[in-house]
């Protein structure tokens, strides 16, 4: 090679890092056993530099992009003696108090990459595993008050030493799961993924030399930082504040201060941590702020460590956004999506060119389990739901896509669900309840009905944005709410937003209804032709067209 650190070579290495992260993602997706990994893609892959700073991330879900660096950094603090980290090692953690960031279901695997004796990078992934033990099937229970009840804790340990799998650790992990075959398959998928990435990185370092490889990582981060700072310069300056009431009556507060060189999110003034499992770790809260920051500053390029350098997040230990060990944390995601939406809502009126009105803004985590009537085997559905998104100037919101937390995530087809889970999907359609009207309307949420085919099944669900609806902008109307109904065979009907381990039996119908997004602008200003089109499409009644839009059909 005639050149070393020329910009073209660095660019080529960076492209190759991105390709490696994508390849890790594809390998894991195709080999995983849990549908939440291979179909819902509740997973992420990434590459960090030797110090654990994120260099490149694969597809998947944005909420996992900022997780892996924090995990690797925790491992580096723990394994800090010479010889602790060797070629061929693979580490595993799932504990938010030990680098796991999210909750115990999410296993993080990380593999150091060496060039000769030099540690040059890490490859890592995170994925939601179906069951890691604990007090409830699926490991998530609304009743948990301590993390010990939520499954096996892996505080950053070696799973593979110099290429040899530690069978003892593997045994401990699998014996603690109610679904050991799934867990084993998923862990192997994760090992394959970090190994494939490591091999690509070794090839890159061998080809271009370690110095050039490192220079490429650095310049990538510098590029991310330059992009972020340039865009930060374009944002409105000042301090913006918002207080928002939650479904349960608590009030969450945020204060965002934007200056020429910093973006400070202050979340210290918030309620004490909850006795239940809806708290989030500080790392988790930081990830949420990073997501909003990235969407504001540079939504177009993949994130790396530099992308987040101007961001500072202030939290108070012992608060709901900075839980203290050993607080339960299983349903962290509903709290994370709340703080994510809180920051978004706080800034939306000031940055309309990047931020639409509020969306259904809940994971709508739904867990249904029981016995498959045809195979006699246990089935467990663990899925986030689709919902409606908010409108913005010039465009109606998107119908039925995943929340801001999920990204390149896929719902489960009815045909596959009926085969795999042994229930009937009676309907899967748009939710046409009123809500989200405006000059531009919020996108429609989902109505999904599961008809249970065997007795003694269960339903667990945790939805927010049920009572306090998706927020509108510029005079639009707020969206509808998220909820789940159970229609019993005796004709009775129960409605929930949070429910844990509810028994369900043959021919009970679980109806999942997710919110439509918030509207944008005064409905009276909506183009009459579009109002008529809405009526024709069955999304709006003629009465409501007259009452809200002033359009007679």
């Amino acid at each position, binding site marked *: *090679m*005639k050149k070393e650190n020329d*910009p*073209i070579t660095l*660019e*080529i290495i960076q*492209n*190759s890092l991105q*390709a490696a992260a994508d*390849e890790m993602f594809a*390998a894991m997706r*195709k080999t*995983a*056993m849990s549908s939440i990994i*291979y179909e819902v893609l509740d997973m992420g892959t990434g590459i960090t530099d030797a110090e654990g700073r994120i260099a490149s991330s694969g*597809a998947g*879900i*944005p909420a996992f992009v900022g997780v892996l660096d924090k995990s690797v950094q925790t491992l580096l603090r723990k394994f800090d003696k010479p010889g602790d980290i060797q070629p061929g090692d693979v580490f595993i953690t799932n504990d938010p108090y030990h680098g796991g960031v999210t909750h115990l279901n999410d296993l993080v695997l990380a593999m150091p990459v060496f060039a000769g004796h030099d540690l040059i990078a890490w490859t890592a992934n995170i994925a939601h595993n179906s069951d890691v033990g604990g007090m409830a099937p699926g490991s998530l229970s609304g009743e948990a008050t301590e993390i010990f009840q939520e499954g096996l804790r892996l505080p950053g340990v070696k799973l593979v030493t110099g290429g040899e799998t530690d069978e003892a650790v593997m045994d401990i992990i699998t014996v603690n799961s109610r679904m050991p*075959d799934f867990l084993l*398959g998923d862990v192997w*998928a994760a090992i*394959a993924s970090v190994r*494939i990435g490591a091999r690509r990185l070794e090839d890159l370092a061998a080809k271009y030399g370690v110095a050039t490889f490192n220079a490429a990582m650095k310049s990538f981060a510098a*590029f991310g930082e330059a992009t972020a700072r*340039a865009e930060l310069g374009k944002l409105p300056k000042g301090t913006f504040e918002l207080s928002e009431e939650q479904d349960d009556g608590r009030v969450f507060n945020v204060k965002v201060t934007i200056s020429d060189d910093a973006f400070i999110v202050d979340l210290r003034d918030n309620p004490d941590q909850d006795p239940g499992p809806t708290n989030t770790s500080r790392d988790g809260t930081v990830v949420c702020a990073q*997501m909003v920051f*990235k969407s504001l500053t*540079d*939504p*177009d390029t993949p994130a790396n460590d530099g992308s987040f350098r101007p961001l500072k997040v202030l939290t108070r230990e012992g608060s709901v956004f900075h839980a203290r060990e050993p607080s339960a944390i299983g349903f962290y995601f509903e709290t994370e999506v709340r703080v994510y939406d809180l920051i*978004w809502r706080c800034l939306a009126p000031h940055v309309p060119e*990047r*931020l*639409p009105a509020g969306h259904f803004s809940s994971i709508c985590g739904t867990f249904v389990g029981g016995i498959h009537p*045809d195979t006699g085997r246990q089935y467990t559905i663990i899925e986030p739901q689709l919902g409606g998104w908010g409108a913005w100037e010039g465009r109606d919101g998107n*119908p*039925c*896509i*995943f929340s801001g937390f*999920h*990204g*390149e*995530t*896929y*719902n489960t*087809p*009815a*045909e596959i669900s*009926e*085969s795999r889970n042994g229930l*009937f999907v*009676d*309907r*899967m*359609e*748009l939710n046409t309840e009123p809500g989200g009207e405006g000059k531009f309307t919020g996108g429609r949420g989902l109505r999904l009905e599961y008809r249970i085919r065997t007795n003694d099944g269960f339903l667990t669900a945790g939805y927010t944005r049920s009572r306090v609806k998706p927020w509108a902008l510029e005079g639009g109307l707020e969206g509808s709410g998220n909820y789940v109904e159970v229609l019993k065979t005796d004709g009775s009907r129960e409605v929930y937003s949070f429910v844990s381990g509810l028994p369900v039996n043959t021919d009970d119908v679980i109806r999942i209804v997710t919110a439509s997004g918030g509207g944008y602008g005064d409905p009276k200003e909506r183009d009459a032709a579009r109002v008529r089109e809405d009526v*024709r*499409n*069955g*999304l709006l009644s003629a009465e409501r067209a007259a009452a809200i839009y002033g359009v007679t059909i």
Partner: protein
Amino acid sequence: MGRITRRVATDVGGTFTDLVCFETDQDTGASRIVTAKSDTTPPDFEKGVLDVLERGGIDPSGVDFLAHGTTVVINALTERKGVKVGLVTTEGFRDTLEIARGNRPDFFNLHYEKPVPFVPRHLRAELPGRMTYTGAERTPLDLSGLPAILDAFRAEGIEAVAISFLHSYANTAHEEAAMTEVQRLWPDVSVVASHQITREWREYERTNTAVLSAYVQPVAARYLRRLDDGLASRGFGGRPYIMQSNCGIDSLDATSRTPITMVESGPASGFWGAAELGRLIGEPNVLALDIGGTTAKCSLIENGEVRIMTDYWIERSRKSAGYPIMVPVVDLVEIGNGGGSIAWVDDFGKLHVGPQSAGALPGPAAYGKGGTEATTTDANLWLGRINREYFCGGAIEADMDAVERSIRSLGAKLDVGPDQAAEGIIRIANNNMVNALKLVSLNRGFDTRDFTLLAFGGGGAMHAVALGQELQVRKVVVPAAASVFSAWGMMMSDLRRDQFVTHLVELVDGAGDKIESTFAEAEAKALATFAEEGVGADRISFLRYSKFRYQNQEHTTEVLLPEGEITDARLDRITEDFHKTYEREYTYRLDAPVEMVGIHLVAKAEVGKLEMRPEPLGSSDAADAVKGRRVVDYALEGRHEATIFDGEALRAGMAFKGPAIVEDSGATAVIHPGNAVEVDSYRNIHVTIHG
């Protein structure tokens, strides 16, 4: 002179309609190639085909075999020029088409715009009736609402009806009944049911496929009918064969019924050509690369077989979820990197190449038609890789002033001189292509050192050696007449139909019978359809693939099954083949139960395929083909004085060393220093990297 056999391939592209005709003397084996080009003539594309025959001096009455490739389907889709479609689907699922899969690929962009369905909600109708995933009827189909639905469709000006019911992959009865009733009530309307195109599960993908097929059906059928009539009126005695996306050709009648199968036929013929050429020259493992004006496409061929898959999407990118089309399509990766791809510098001083293309107008700066942005072609000219005196085979005078301006202006943004800027363009373009080639090879566990890189299309040979060096392939082969290689591939194609059927079978005792009967049913269906078209069973051969996975997994690994009846006794060998294939791709295997998820049956029949005859190898002295010398900048290897060869003067047996350039009227091959070149008995160029 003996009897002459004439085989013709015509290909309708975006700008030009191409023709290649092979004339073979049956007695002597001597052959002659005629090529011709004429303008593509939208919207009456068949006119361009008749024009090009005339321009090539081909009398249709003397043609024995005619294959035809067309972009009419993909154009109708991407330009939204199909017809108004009404959808009839299962009660409770009319929104499947709009809900899609809910993914947000551009996930930090909160203004993401979900693709809009091809059928609006008020034209999506429901009928009661359900099948289960095993194919059992849960609720009978109630057709009583259909007349009212069709009345509404008529009033709306619907021209095509798509039918898609849940679990029709497992039991087609409801879809068939609904289809018959639609045809009875409304004989003039075009109608398609999802099971006619695919028998695989996933209702959104299958429904969208049926809808898109209905959307293009009247347009494509009209086109094919006019083509057929036009050829017949000029005396053509046979029926044209139509190139498909699965690397095969199919009859005009079959194609007219579900024309969506043509959607990606453009690249398919070239990749089939690569597989056939590989077999001919004893290189069964081929990495095939096709570089055109706006994109580069690549595909991997293992043991002479192309890989055919059904997870194909249009308009899908990092920015959009796109639209799935569940038809058999050759497994390929396409990137926006071709000769006309524009090089640009972003706000942060980083150089990119593509995916924007200068197109045919203004085209690269060198065209002198007002293009001011540097393209890959301009960089190749600036570096001396393309002959500025023989640009586009001498048809266009290269505007080198415009090239220099465009490259200097790009260099100024990067703070480098023009040479370095041009080298940068080539290196970035090459890197984009290397990453695409890795996606089809290394990413799937194939070692590129076991493969031959075969490069064709206008730009393939220009970049192939640099890419081959990076990937450490066995060697690089540039076919004779690389610029019309796709048409050659079309003439080498068989009549081919790929059937995919979802059928879940656990690999336990009794599975052998179940698998065998699934194949037997599919084979009987294929034989029956071929028989209707006059193709006898003796001419048909089958390849049986199955898709397997470990129990509880979702994604499958396809494995070629051994020939002969499948019995329980053979399950062990089949299972082991799956374990091996799986381990190669994913680095590990599991001690877990294995299940078959479905079958993939390939039915092939030869119809008038071209037979190539080798020439004897002559002297290795290539002096007669030398047309000069010039300085060429090889980017990474710097500047060297290269020998320039006339590609049309190369003869079997000639050999020479790099640095060199081989140019003919359609393509330029860049041979790097240290490479050794040999011309084989079909006049293909073989480049050994370290000669």
